[in-house]
């Protein structure tokens, strides 16, 4: 195998100042940007679902199931970019079989398995059990068999059985919230614990990453809700939308404050690395950080959302403004992931120079693969929604759970 060095010689010409010679290549490229973005969406969507259950927010009841399924769809795809990025994907099972317990990354297997098996799958199963049983009774094969199997051949829709389901869901949700925090907080810790890298090394990192995750997850569910509802020929429930938007508004404010605190803290402490980091922000990251992450992804949506609260716009305009904000926020959070991951490798640890990153179009680490990885969870979600419809549930509302109407 002859590795492709032309790309590296090309990069060499874009280096400014001095970098350690082994630092020319940005080792964690676009795929590692996609990974925290996807898990962030998982954590965010799950926390939105949990709000419904734990705090019993009736207004957003109709997106509860959608949020859960969104979290599952994105969680199923999340390890894929990591796997593709490995030099030896065939050895990835070593992380499970032979983990090094001092490594934050080795904990991935456990955190992921816990979240998938104990939290998401169980919550979804107990949430849907009654409906799956009822669907299976009325359907024709092959859907009948699929639902029978997924219900693990349970057939109990008695009051007692349903009351038990409800209790379990409540318990899982309570375990689930700290688990979602763990899932994404640990992703932040992978970066935040690297003392060699001043751009990453910060106790705030897991918290900032977590709050931006909640922001992106809520924004994603809003987008999905606003797109899917008209596709189903239904009317968007403005009360639900307004409530989700106000959750989004508060989390954006927290997220923005945390990022601002991080920024001011760095600037005020003005450590050894401040010069090279400022150079990086004002050159290499100017568009992705200043323009996309801060201006488009945070300030403009904030202004829009404040305006919506101050002036009672009519429904149609409000919908349009919400949609614009959530798209911008989504773009901004992706840029946040980019700025953390790629930004952390653009400057030399000698603090004397900057390297560059050039994304390819094709190939494993390319733009097309990235787009595919971002679309794939949506396809998975579409399949999940076919098997577990989030709406039009069986009308025989047994037990306590309110059947979503929208």
């Amino acid at each position: 195998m002859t590795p492709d060095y032309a790309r590296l010689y090309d990069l060499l010409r874009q280096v400014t100042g001095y970098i350690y010679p082994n630092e020319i290549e940005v080792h964690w490229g676009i795929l590692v940007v996609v990974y925290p973005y996807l898990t962030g969406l998982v954590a965010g969507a799950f926390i939105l679902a949990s709000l419904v259950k734990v705090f019993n927010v009736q207004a957003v009841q109709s997106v509860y199931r959608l949020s859960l399924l969104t979290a599952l769809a994105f969680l199923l795809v999340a390890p894929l970019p990591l796997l593709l990025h490995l030099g030896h994907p065939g050895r990835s099972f070593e992380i499970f079989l032979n983990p090094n317990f001092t490594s934050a990354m080795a904990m991935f297997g456990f955190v992921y398995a816990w979240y998938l098996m104990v939290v998401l799958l169980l919550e979804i199963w107990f949430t849907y059990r009654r409906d799956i049983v009822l669907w299976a009774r009325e359907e024709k094969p092959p859907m009948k068999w699929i639902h029978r199997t997924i219900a693990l051949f349970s057939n109990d829709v008695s009051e007692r059985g349903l009351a038990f389901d409800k209790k379990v869901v409540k318990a899982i949700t309570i375990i689930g919230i700290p688990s979602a925090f763990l899932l994404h907080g640990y992703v932040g810790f992978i970066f935040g614990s690297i003392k060699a890298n001043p751009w990453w090394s910060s106790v705030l990192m897991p918290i900032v990453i977590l709050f931006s995750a909640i922001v992106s997850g809520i924004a994603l569910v809003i987008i999905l809700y606003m797109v899917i509802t008209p596709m189903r020929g239904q009317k968007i429930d403005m009360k639900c939308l307004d409530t989700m938007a106000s959750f989004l508004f508060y989390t954006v404010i927290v997220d923005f404050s945390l990022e601002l605190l991080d920024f001011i803290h760095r600037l005020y402490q003005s450590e050894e690395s401040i010069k090279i980091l400022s150079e990086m922000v004002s050159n290499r990251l100017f568009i992705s950080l200043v323009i996309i992450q801060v201006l488009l992804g945070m300030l403009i949506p904030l202004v829009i959302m404040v305006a919506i609260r101050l002036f009672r716009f009519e429904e149609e305009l409000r919908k349009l403004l919400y949609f614009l904000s959530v798209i911008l926020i989504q773009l901004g959070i992706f840029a946040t992931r980019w700025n953390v991951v790629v930004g952390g490798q653009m400057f030399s640890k000698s603090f004397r120079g900057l390297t560059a990153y050039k994304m390819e179009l094709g190939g494993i680490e390319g733009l097309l693969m990235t787009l595919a990885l971002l679309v794939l969870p949506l396809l998975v979600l579409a399949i999940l929604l076919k098997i577990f419809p989030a709406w039009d549930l069986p009308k025989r509302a047994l037990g306590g759970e309110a059947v979503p109407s929208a």
Partner: protein
Amino acid sequence: MERRGFLEKLFAVALPGGVLGLLIRRAPARAEGYEASAHYYGMGIQVDKCIGCGRCVEACKDENNVPREPFFFRTWVERYSVRWRGEATVRNIDRALEGPAEVGGEGEVLRSFFVPKLCNQCDHPPCVQVCPVGATFATEDGVILVDEKRCIGCRYCIQACPYGARYLNPVTEAADKCTFCYHRITKGLLPACVEVCPTQARIFGDMRSTASPLTRFRRMNKLHVLKGHLNTEPKVTYADLDGEVR
């Protein structure tokens, strides 16, 4: 009952497998009769003796099959030029790199020197801490090695190294770095870079030995380590190190 049987079988396979995996320690190839616990290696670098000839870099690449391209180094030499005004400029001395060798106009340079760099073989190594599968490990004789057959190529160690001492070998797709020429030192030979250094700017030895060139170096000089504030506790120590060096 069926489920229980399946679970039992699963445990029967997974448990011993996991335990075996934990028990099997990586054993690097060593010469016969070599007692690892009797040694503890380190290196000293006398900055003022380095003339920037780059023979150490060449020898290292030859000895260890490091790709020739100027993006992969187990050791490299930096040239510092501190000017009267403005910042120091630094360059990597390597034959494969183009560009002029001069460092500035007449009278501009205040002081200039070369600094050899390599893996610091830290006593408190961040790379070993972060490796998810334990492919990077510390030997009893104090050297940090990579098991290229176990490395999954996640590159977390490259991110965690404060010194830029690691690279991903494009041929093996595994992390790679200086080993103090472990295959040589366990036979009583010197690392290749030390062997070829014409000015003895690099001094290799056993820190347990009371009478070795390294011990003499450590006794006769004021020593410094790179990025000491990061608490990595390097075993590569520098004499005559300038404050500009990072």
